[in-house]
């Protein structure tokens, strides 16, 4: 079992010749400042050799600060080293000339970097030399070349005209019996806009080209210059069914910067809110999988479970998506004994309804036939692409951010300990199994939530720098 300190010592040894080191963003994390951008591929490979994998890439425009540069941060996390995985982040930091931001692309060796680099290219104008697929990602046809909306010099009120554009270069599959089935961006059901080109032979999908970002709303630009309390409301609306996780992610970042200690009771309530959000999404998705397999009973059963849990959300927070429960510094509402009993009852009925639905799915060969070996994601591909969450665990990757990077009350309260559900088959059936197992462990834990002592639920969280 590798300790975070041992991992960081290994990183320092490997990169001492090309970089300087500082602590951060958290006190026990490490930021590695590369002296030359050209050393980036070798440094990333060295981190890979130390058992670290790319978690995310973040770009900031610091042209208006004394640094007068663009900063690109490649955040790595341990992909091996025990269970739970060591909770430490290593950030490769590269500073770029704001007038000519150029970097060697990592995507050929690290597929997980590909979309991050394309996004940084669109929004910040960073050129990634050698990118295997440099097509635009976030900005669509008719966006003026050379204009990058997340640069600070880009006026937030500007609305550039749509320029004449050629058709987007989709990958075309050719051959006898190959059909191209275009779907979207606006769909027949209630799903997020996206354009999908399926190249098929019979029932086999040879290639799927997704094109997303139709609902790119420019939220990052929207929050520029807003006070923390106002920006929180935008962050909470990043995604409808992830209000708690996005809102809490923003709060925890702001609290970390402001040095605010959130009361224990508030951390517990935040964790309960996160689990309730996971729960209604899990059961809703089991229903969505049934819809995808044309199993109408399952669709309705999933929707019914989700609706019951959203009505519980409404009773707890006054909001079916739990918005407004979390707030910078803590939570806005406490859990009364009556509401705690309502949660307990909902946990019991959800567990019962889920078991019934799963049993019907498993005993229905026309359904399982459509779930088995469908949408296969082999474990090595999941790792290479940096897949997280349910999809990763259904491909046999033993990772769970709640366990490996614990926050809120996941680490401090033993009764909230996460049971990580893994299934190695990598198909749709495995993803149903992971969601069902996760639902069961949450409903079991739910009955213990009521026992936490009542205490303060909020600390003042002022805007940093104000």
């Amino acid at each position, binding site marked *: 079992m590798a300790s975070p300190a041992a991992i960081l010592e290994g990183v320092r040894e490997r990169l001492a010749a090309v970089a300087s080191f500082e602590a951060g963003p958290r006190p026990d994390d490490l930021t590695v400042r590369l002296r030359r951008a050209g050393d980036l591929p070798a440094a990333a490979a060295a981190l890979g050799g130390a058992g670290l994998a790319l978690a995310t890439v973040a770009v900031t425009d610091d042209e208006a600060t004394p640094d007068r540069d663009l900063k690109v941060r490649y955040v790595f996390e341990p992909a091996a080293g025990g269970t739970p995985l060591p909770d430490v982040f290593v950030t490769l930091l590269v500073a770029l000339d704001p007038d000519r931001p150029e970097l060697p692309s990592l995507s050929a060796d690290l597929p997980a970097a590909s979309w991050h680099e394309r996004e940084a290219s669109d929004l910040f104008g960073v050129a990634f030399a050698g990118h295997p697929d440099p097509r635009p990602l976030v900005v669509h046809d008719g966006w003026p070349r050379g204009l990058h909306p997340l640069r600070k010099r880009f006026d937030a009120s500007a609305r550039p005209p749509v320029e004449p554009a050629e058709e987007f270069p989709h990958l075309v599959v050719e051959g006898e019996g190959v059909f191209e089935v275009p779907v979207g961006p606006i769909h027949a059901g209630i799903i997020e806009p996206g354009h999908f080109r399926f190249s098929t032979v019979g029932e086999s999908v040879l290639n799927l080209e997704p094109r997303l970002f139709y609902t*790119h709303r*420019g939220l990052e630009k929207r929050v520029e210059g807003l006070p923390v309390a106002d920006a929180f*409301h935008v962050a909470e609306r990043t995604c409808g069914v992830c209000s708690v996780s996005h809102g809490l992610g923003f709060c925890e970042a702001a609290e970390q910067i402001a040095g605010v200690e959130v009361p224990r009771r508030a951390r517990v309530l935040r964790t309960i809110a996160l689990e309730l959000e996971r729960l209604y999404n899990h059961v809703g998705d089991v229903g969505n999988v049934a819809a995808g397999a044309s199993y109408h009973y399952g669709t309705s059963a999933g929707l019914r479970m989700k609706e019951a849990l959203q009505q519980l959300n409404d009773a707890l927070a006054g909001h079916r998506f739990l918005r407004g429960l979390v707030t910078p510094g803590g939570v806005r509402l406490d859990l009364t004994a009556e509401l705690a009993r309502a949660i307990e009852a909902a946990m019991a009925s959800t567990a019962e309804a889920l078991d019934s639905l799963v049993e019907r799915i498993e005993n229905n060969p026309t359904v399982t036939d459509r779930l088995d070996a469908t949408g296969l994601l082999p474990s090595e591909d999941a790792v290479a692409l940096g897949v997280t969450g349910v999809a990763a665990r259904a491909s046999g990757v033993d990772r769970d951010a709640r366990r490996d990077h614990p926050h809120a009350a996941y680490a401090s309260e033993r009764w909230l300990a996460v049971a990580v559900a893994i299934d190695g088959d990598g198909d749709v059936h495995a993803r149903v199994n992971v969601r069902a197992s996760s639902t069961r462990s949450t409903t079991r834990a739910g009955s213990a939530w009521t026992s936490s002592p009542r205490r303060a639920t909020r600390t003042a969280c002022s805007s940093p720098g104000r």
Partner: protein
Amino acid sequence: MDVVASPRHADGVLVTGPVTRNLEAAVRRTWEAVPEPRVVIAVGACASSGGVVGRSYASAGGVGEVLPVDVLVPGCPPRPEAIIHGILVAVGRVRPRR
């Protein structure tokens, strides 16, 4: 009431967010494909006015910026009852509340 697979089979469209730059052409074409008479219902604060998203490089604001809107349903998001009410107002089954 039914959610149908094609705008050709629809009597109206519900727009549930701000009209983003990347979706604007598709929103217009979906509306044009709906046979007349047709209704447009803006569901939620962003569809009604742009909401927290506002007008920007990425967003035209509310659906009223690009299509004629019959009914605005407030809320972020509106409750299911409010959406049903808005649809019933749009088809003339209940009177609007002002």
